[in-house]
């Protein structure tokens, strides 16, 4: 696999505190990678090291095959970094702002690239207004336009929807989806789980500075599904839920039964094996009026909670 990012024992300490602690991580080119973790887990520090903003205390990392310490200038040419609260020059218009950064990136056909980027983020009509009058969402979109003008291969997005209203959040997510579909590698740092489920092909979870899991969202769900939970709904015509729960608990492969009320039970099975047909037969034999039976799918939130406590 061609790697966009490869970390080997990457560590960053601040006054003896390891914000990022010996992380090993590989992200393939063209992947939309979700980097999940609770607040203070080390996401932003990792992304800042990979964006060549801060230097690692120890370990190494390659971005597009280049070392983040030795080849930082070459890396900067191919990456786009969107911080959590991106700045702007209040007296500048979007055109002036993008011209400044476009010149720093030596963009050819700068005016064309700016027009295209502004249209992409929906700010073309506001191109001559001073940015101090912009809403948070507009500033965020302007900064996404800043990322687009030099056509970077790799994007580091740190909480891109933080502080945005639902409409702004939706617009930014759609932009990220479009960018992912256009083949760019995206390293998305967030703690908003629906965002990850919506846009990411691969997810890494970081907790207390350490990587605790890396897989596809589906793969992570499978790992968390250490015990199947079967949701059962029974009607009032047969045996009652409490009595039924006691009977189910006597089965050797059942780990736990929870009576949820309203004739619903959650039966936790201690293995990955499919036990629904067996359980259905058992319930009917006991005289239960079986209405419905579902295998409870763990959400990414369950995965996140399971790994980060």
């Amino acid at each position: 696999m061609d790697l966009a990012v490869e970390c080997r024992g990457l560590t960053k300490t601040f006054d003896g505190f390891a914000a990022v602690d010996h992380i090993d991580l590989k992200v393939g080119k063209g992947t939309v990678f979700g980097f999940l973790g609770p607040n203070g887990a080390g996401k932003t520090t990792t992304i800042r090291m990979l964006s060549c903003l801060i230097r690692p205390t120890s370990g190494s990392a390659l971005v597009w095959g280049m070392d983040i310490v030795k080849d930082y200038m070459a890396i900067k040419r191919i990456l786009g970094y969107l911080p959590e609260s991106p700045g702007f020059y209040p007296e500048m218009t979007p055109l002036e702002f993008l011209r400044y950064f476009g010149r720093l990136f030596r963009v050819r056909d700068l005016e064309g690239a700016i027009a295209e980027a502004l249209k992409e983020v929906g700010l073309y009509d506001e191109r001559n207004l001073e940015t101090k009058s912009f809403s948070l969402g507009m500033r965020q979109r302007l900064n996404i336009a800043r990322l687009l003008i030099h056509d970077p291969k790799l994007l580091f997005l740190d909480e891109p929807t933080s502080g945005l209203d639902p409409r702004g959040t939706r617009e930014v997510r759609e932009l990220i989806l479009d960018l992912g579909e256009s083949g760019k590698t995206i390293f998305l740092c967030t703690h908003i789980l629906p965002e990850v489920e919506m846009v990411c092909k691969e997810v890494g979870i970081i907790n207390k500075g350490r990587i605790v899991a890396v897989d596809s969202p589906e793969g992570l769900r499978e790992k968390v599904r250490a015990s199947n939970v079967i949701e059962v709904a029974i009607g009032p015509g047969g045996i009652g839920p409490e009595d039924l729960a006691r009977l189910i608990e006597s089965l050797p492969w059942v780990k736990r039964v929870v009576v949820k009320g309203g004739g619903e039970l959650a039966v936790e099975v201690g293995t990955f094996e499919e036990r629904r047909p067996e359980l259905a037969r058992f319930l009917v034999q006991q005289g239960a009026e079986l209405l419905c039976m579902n295998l409870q799918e763990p959400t990414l939130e369950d995965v996140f909670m399971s790994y980060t406590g």
Partner: protein
Amino acid sequence: MDLANTRQRVAVGLSDLSSSLIVARKELRDGFLSLRPYSMATVAFIGMSFFMWIQTEIPMGTDPIVQMVVGLLSLLALFYAVAFSMDSIVSEKAMRTLPLIKTAPISSSSLVLGKYAAILVTWIAILLTSLLYFVLGGRGLVGDVAWGKLLLGYLSTILVAGAMSSVSIFISSVTSSVKSSAMGSLGVLFAFMGISVARQLFSSFESVAKILNFIRNFSLIRYSSMVTEELFENGNELYLGVAGLLAYCVIFIIAAICVVGLKEDVA
């Protein structure tokens, strides 16, 4: 292979250096869109008008007038340098634009040098407006203008502005708010000025005077006076003054570049 590598490094270095022109251009645009250069030019204009008025009331001859003008401009240069440099780096932190610049392909040296160049170019523009007095007024106002000394005097004020700017840019790079940077820069300037005053006040206390004399050896104001005064008196401390001011420029600009490059306050 080595030659190819060297060529590539030189090309990258030149390309990076040209980034400082992009930064300077942006800073000049921001600077001239604000009121600061115009207010400085107005102060220079009023000050020079005052000296010209003195000249018409009490004829002094060309040299004293030029010397007074250069003295006024060098004092103005110190305040100009503080006013224009104190927010140069810290404002990027305050606006949270520093991480955006630091992830662009530009080195910290190009960023700092670009800002520094813009400050000096703005000062030169202000100087040029004040030069109009001599160009347009010429013989009618001050008699035969000693152009050589006048231009050297003007150059010396650029050196003074450069030295004080480098100190202010350095303070701006280590502080985290515009307010603390302004207080720091003005504090340093007044401390420099205060040394000379304190030296005179405590001249009767030998031990205090010794300490103040020692500190004064490193004062930017002293080097500035050496240059602007000795220029007209052909004193032998002129070169020491120039060397002192240049040392200030180089040391503090390098320090600011190091701080911008290494300090990790990019939040």
